[in-house]
Every structure is written in C-alpha cells, then in structure tokens.
C-alpha cells in the first residue's frame, strides 16, 4: 500500500549555495541522494570564440573574467602562453611582481573558499571574517592596478606598470597578520565540532578516482596525491622559491578545507621570499605593438591556478588574431566528480561537496 518514489529535486540554477549558475539535478530517496546530474552552461559567454576575433593583447581583459575570484592567475596563464608562442623575454622584476600578485590571488581565492564553505554549512559569521581579510588583498590590487576584482594587470612581456610605493608596507602588514588570521579560521571554522561532523568522511574522493577523472589542484592534493604544477612543471620563476605542498589523507570535505588553509600559509611564504629577492629594473619587455606569431604554430601552457591546472591552448594562423584558443578550466573538470562523491550521501552533503570542490562557474562555462 505504501510505496516510496525516487523524486527529482533541482538544486539551482537559482539557489543560494551553488556559487553561480550551477544546476544539479538530484535524484532523491527521502533525504538520501541516489544520483546527481550536473548541468552546466548557464554562465556561458563564448570566451573561446570571442578570442578568435580579438588580437592577442585585446583578449587579456577577458581572461580575468574566467576565474574572477583569483583575478591575476588566469591572466598570468594566458599571458605566459602568448609569451611562449612568441618567444618573448620577461624582465626579472616583472616575474617577481607576477609571483607576488599571483600568490595574493591564490590567497584571496582560498579565503573566499573557507568563507563560502562556512556559510554554505550555515555559519554566517565565518564568511564575514574571511571577507574582512580578503578585503585587504582587494585593496592591494586596487593600489597596483586601480581595479579590485578584474585587474587585467599582466601584459604580454611583463606587467603594465611597477608596483606603487604604498603596496609594499601593505603587503608586509598583511603577511604579518596572516598567521593570526589562519588561527582565527581554525578556531571559528575548522575546529568547530558541527562543521567537523558535517565534513569528516563526506564526499570521499580516492586518489585513483581523482587521477582517473583528471581532478587537479587542492582537490587532488586533498586526496593525497602530491602534484602541484609549481613543483611538477615549474613555470615562470617558481623553481627559485622554497615551499611545501600540503596534502590530505582521506580526500574528504574536511581535508579539502585543511589543504586550502595550509596553502594560504605556503603562499604567504612564497610572497615573503619574492619580496626579499626582488630586483629593481624594467617591468615590461620589448614587445611589438601588433603580435603576429608564425603561421601554424601552436602552444599549450599550463599553470597552477587556485582551482587546479589551468591551461591555455593557442593556435596561430599568422595574423594578429589567434586561430583558436582553448581553455582547460580546472573548475569544469573538478565539477564532474560531484555525482561520484555525492551518491549515497544526504541532501545536505551535496551542498558541502559543491562548496569544497570550489567551482567558479565563470571558468567552468567559459
């Protein structure tokens, strides 16, 4: 007489905790998730097609809009890809500025991750604490480029201008306070009993599965795989810095949180070293006004973005515009494991899983 049905529930695209236009179709048996289907494309802006109708330089501002939470990193990836294509030399000082701003972007992105995980689990105060600290990074971006969120600061062959005087004391003060901030997050968010109960053993991703699905970045490292492009395939001047790659053991939501908090600390160390070693000099190399790479030349360049391996694949047809640009978006690849880790969990676990995979829909839909 009494039968139970499996019903569908649509999480998103209009939902408070899907981090943008993400649509997850969950097949539910009561509160238990039988399956989850990820629907993408709500933030599709045809970035790759736009690139074909812009010159190499004109596409730089668009790249910030890929991963807008770590604004300098996608721009860095694109700019370095074009430099590889053209064989452009970058001045020393510009390389160090790139590292400093790139790592600051990583910290900003991870701080927002910690905060958004907290609010997705219902702890509003955690978000505000993280936003408060992230605000200081945004201020530093404003000092350097006049823009807070979408800086477009990198240029092919360097950066657009030197860092201003007031940037250095600000970054010093920030790095001095960084340890205290992390202590605060650990006390308020990571150490909370309820949060641990909701994250421990939830959304477990085994290292084999993670590699099979092509997961990269902190999500992969949380599963215990020691793989960071800054060490595995160093780009720019990353060989010159000493830092550790934090890894997790269980690959659950809690590990994904802890790995990111540790990465914030490591990025702080990198910035400190870069500030110490930074030479004076030019910040922009000699680059022709109009870039025309050789016909038929193609290049793939990948960097370790805040979300994982961010790759740019450029094909040139000899004109000032690229023939094809492809973006290997880590958010897109990482999101594909959501059904795998959500199956068999509870409805509330899906929210924790989405939050700890840390997707940026602008990047995944492009």
């Amino acid at each position, binding site marked *: 007489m009494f039968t139970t049905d499996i*019903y569908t*529930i649509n999480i998103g695209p209009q*939902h*408070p*905790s899907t981090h943008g236009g993400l649509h997850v179709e969950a097949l539910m048996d009561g*509160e238990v998730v039988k399956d989850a289907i990820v629907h993408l494309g709500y933030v599709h802006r045809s970035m790759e097609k736009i690139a074909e109708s812009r010159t190499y330089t004109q596409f730089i501002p668009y790249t910030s809009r890929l991963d807008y939470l770590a604004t300098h990193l996608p721009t860095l990836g694109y700019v370095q890809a074009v430099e590889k294509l053209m064989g452009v030399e970058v001045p020393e000082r510009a390389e160090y500025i790139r590292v400093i701003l790139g790592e600051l972007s990583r910290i900003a992105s991870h701080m927002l991750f910690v905060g958004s995980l*907290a*609010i*997705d*689990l*219902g*702890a*509003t*105060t*955690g978000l*505000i*604490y993280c936003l*408060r600290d992230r605000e200081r990074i945004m201020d530093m971006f404003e000092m350097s480029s006049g823009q807070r969120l979408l800086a477009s600061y990198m240029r092919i062959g360097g950066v657009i201008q030197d860092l201003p005087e007031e940037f250095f004391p600000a970054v010093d003060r920030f790095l001095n306070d960084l340890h205290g901030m992390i202590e605060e997050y650990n006390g*308020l968010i990571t150490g*909370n009993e*309820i*949060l641990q*109960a*909701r994250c421990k053993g939830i959304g477990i991703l085994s290292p084999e599965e993670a590699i099979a699905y092509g997961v990269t970045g902190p999500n992969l490292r949380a599963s215990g795989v020691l793989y960071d492009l800054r060490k595995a395939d160093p780009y720019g001047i990353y060989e010159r810095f000493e830092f550790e790659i934090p890894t997790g053991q269980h690959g659950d939501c809690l590990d994904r949180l802890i790995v990111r908090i540790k990465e914030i600390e490591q990025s702080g160390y990198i910035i400190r070293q870069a500030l110490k070693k930074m030479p004076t000099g030019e910040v922009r190399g000699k680059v022709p006004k109009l870039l025309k790479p050789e016909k038929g030349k193609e290049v793939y360049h990948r960097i370790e973005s805040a979300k994982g391996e961010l790759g740019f694949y450029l094909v040139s047809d000899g004109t000032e515009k690229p023939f094809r640009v492809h973006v290997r978006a880590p958010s897109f690849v990482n999101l594909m494991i959501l059904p795998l880790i959500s199956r068999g969990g*509870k*409805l*509330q*676990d899906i*929210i924790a899983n989405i939050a700890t995979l840390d997707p940026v829909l602008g990047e995944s839909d492009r």
Partner: protein
Amino acid sequence: MEHWFLNIAHWLTSWLVSLGLAPVWAEVILLVGQWTCIVGIITLNVLVLIWLERKVAGFMQQRLGPNRLGPYGFFQTIADTLKLLTKEDIIPSQTDKLIFKIAPMFFIIVSVMLYAVLPMGQDMAVVNLNVGLFYFISVGSLSTICLLMAGWGSNNKWSLLGAMRSVAQMISYEIPLAFSLLGVVMISGSLNLSDIVQAQHNLWFILLQPVAFITFFIAATAELNRGPFDMPEAEQELTAGAFTEYSGMRWALFFLAEYTNLVAVSALAATLFLGGWQGPFLPSWLWIILKTYLIMMVFMWLKWTFPRIRMDHLMSLSWKVLIPISLVNIVLTGAGIEIFRWMGW
C-alpha cells in the same frame, strides 16, 4: 512601581462594575484587554528583537548592522514591516489554497496562546492554570502542524522537505524538552508556573538542575527552529524550506511567530530555571523581562556562531544523547529528593 499593572487592572474592573456591569462581564472585558495588550506587546517587541538580532549579528561579525534609519538604525525594522505590508500577496497557482492561507495564521495564533500561562510578574499570569507547564508544552507542539501545513500546502519539494524535517525534528525534541522539565516539577511539586517561581525563592533551579537546564536549552533551540538547528528553513540547502513560496505579509507572519516563540520559550526558561520574576530592588515584571532578554541573547549568540547540524546527526543527538541524559536526570533527581527527605531537610 511593582503593582502598576495590577492597579490598572483593579481600577478598570471596579470602574466597569461601578458602571453597572455584572462582575463576570467586567472580567471578560478585562481578559480581552489583557489579550490585546499581549498581542500588541508581542508585535512591538518583535520589531525591537529583529533590530537587536541584526545588531548582535553585526557586532559578532565586526560590522555595523542597520544604521541608516533613526538612531542606531532603530527604525529599520519599521520600514521593513511597512514594505512587507505593502507587498503583493502572491499565492502560487498550484498550491492548496486554503491550507496555504491559514498556515501562517495558525502559526501565529499558537505562538500567542503560549503567553496565557506565563507569569510576567508577581500575580501577573493571565490565566493562573494549575497545569500551566503541561499546557505550555502541549500548545507549543502544535506549531509542528502549522509548519507541516505550510510545507504541504505550498506544493513545492523544498517546502515539503523542510516541513518533513521540522516534523521529525520537533517531535523528537519534544521528548527531551518535556523530560528535562520533569526534574523541576518533581522538586517544586507543581505544574503551576507561578508556584514553580515561588519554589525558587531561596535557590534558583538552574543550580539544582544544571543538567536539565542544558538539555532544556538544546531541546528548546531545536523546538524554536533556530540555528544551529534551523532545519525547516535551512537557507543554504532548502532555499527557505517550508516558507519558500511565502512572500509579503504571510511570510512576515511566520517570522513574527518565530520570534514570538523565541520570547515565550526564553521566558519559560527564565521562569523555570532563573527564578522567574524574583529579584531584588527592581519590580518583578522588569526582572522577568531582563532575564528573558538575557536568555534570548544566548540564543542569538549560538545562532550566529555555529554552522547548521546535519539532519541525521540532529536526530541521533536527540534520541541517543539528550533523552538518555534527561532520563538519568529524572532518576537522580528522584533519588536526591528521597535522600534529602530521609535526612530530614
């Protein structure tokens, strides 16, 4: 000062009788007056409470909170209420109209009914019921049905999930809530709330029943659907749970009722564990207000600190932790009473 409100009541009754009204009818009119006062005070108090909650949240989150309208943003909630009052009343076409419409009304009625037995000062309970505590708990559990009505009537999966969660949660937490109060009842030997307050003349029950107080507090948080147990709403998962389809004044009624419940349960906690209206220097009605607000501040503190607990953890917390603890507490209280009696205290 102590007898202000009682004097007004006496003066009103004698005036009505002097007009030639039968004493029974004078009583009825007085009762209507009392209810009007209660509803008025509740509504105005909620305005203050919402402002206070936003200020407390702002303080905890190192921001200012409302600060534009009036001193310290005090009139912000009034502006919000006016906005809600003037909003379009949207009833989705697929809803069960009757249930959808009456659910918020029932919810607020049930919440206001709680105030009937609460002694808001010496001799200041509207109805001095000898089973007051029993009445409070049984009426309080009625709000479950209202949430279920809202969730079912909305014809929305999120709402239904929220409603089912709230039913499961509130029924489970009803048990430790009632059990934790049994210790107090055993010591005072009465279900009448005024008598329970009198029994705390020398010693507050929070000192005699600390375990019961903690169990009561946790169970009450769950009963009130407040964070970290705000399952029925659960904004981040269920959008707004049982209230997803509600807007405008109907939604505001739910909000109003939740805060009304909050005040009532805080007042009950103050009455049962913190000595009710008893206290030196200040008039009794001021004491109960102060104690109620103190407990409400703790509720707010909890809500703005903790993440939301998971549904199955919530259930196991009730059945595997709170209920055994409260049962043991009852046994120990009984043994304690016997020992004290045997020692001739």
